[in-house]
């Protein structure tokens, strides 16, 4: 549906050629990039800008568990994109199945992170224990927060899917929320590397 249709005479103005929700989500993600730039950037600056020696992450953090968690998040991205494909092809059953899977995977990621946090804090590694603690909890914490938001909205989408809101190839909602979900995954890929592995 476009103005151009109603006014064939007029030169229809090209937007970015992307429907509005998707464009809005991308614009929002640009903002998110800068938000994480602030957090990750500060970590980089504090770690490589200051002369002090930095604790070796692998001695404090539990790499295997987090590696597993990374895998979980990647899986959730796949299930998400599968859900999107299903929505495009109007395969309702598939859509619901993949969405539920995504929610579960996302939730378990948060769960594992909660478990990780509790253990670290028991070991006495807290936000106030040095720059590493400060940056670690801020970055992973805010990523976790984003995942949680994603899980909630995903659950909501699942509900709507069961109400058949995405039937008949109405995939815009799914694609849009999917973009957010993949972005969160993408951020984690970066975080996992520079926080856990360096």
């Amino acid at each position, binding site marked *: 549906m476009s103005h151009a249709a109603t006014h064939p005479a007029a030169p229809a103005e090209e937007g*970015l*050629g992307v429907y509005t929700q998707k464009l809005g989500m991308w614009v929002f993600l*640009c903002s998110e990039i*800068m938000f994480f*730039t602030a957090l990750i950037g500060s970590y980089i600056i504090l770690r490589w800008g200051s002369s002090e020696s930095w604790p070796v992450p692998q001695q404090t953090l539990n790499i295997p568990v987090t590696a597993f968690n990374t895998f979980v998040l990647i899986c959730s991205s796949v299930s998400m994109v599968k859900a999107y494909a299903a929505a495009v092809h109007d395969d309702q059953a598939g859509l619901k199945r993949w969405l539920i899977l995504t929610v579960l995977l996302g939730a378990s990621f948060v769960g594992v992170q909660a478990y990780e946090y509790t253990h670290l804090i028991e070991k006495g590694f807290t936000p106030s224990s040095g720059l590493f603690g400060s940056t670690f909890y801020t970055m992973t914490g805010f990523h976790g927060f984003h995942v949680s938001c994603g899980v909630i909205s995903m659950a909501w989408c699942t509900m709507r899917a069961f109400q058949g809101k995405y039937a008949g190839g109405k995939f815009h909602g799914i694609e849009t929320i999917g973009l957010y979900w993949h972005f969160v995954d*993408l951020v984690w890929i970066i975080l996992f590397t520079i926080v856990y592995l*360096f």
Partner: protein
Amino acid sequence: MATVEHKHPNYIAIWLYLAALTGVELVVALLHFLPRHWLIGALVFLAIWKAGLVALYFMHLKFEPKRLVIMILAPLPLAVIMVLFILQEFHR
């Protein structure tokens, strides 16, 4: 709204791809066979690689109009400018 006509890439393949890369990362990171700065370089490279896969296929940027891609990449230079300036400032 002709942005969906693209055929869907094989998502499962990309999934395995990502999993494999993660495996490589772990190997590189945990069995320290590389000198420190090489290690960092390799890991950053792998991370960007993975991120690229997610962005290109899962977020199907590969199939979006150029202008959108440009718009999305716009913040990155700013981010880099900020971090590099501040970094070299403390790195004395």
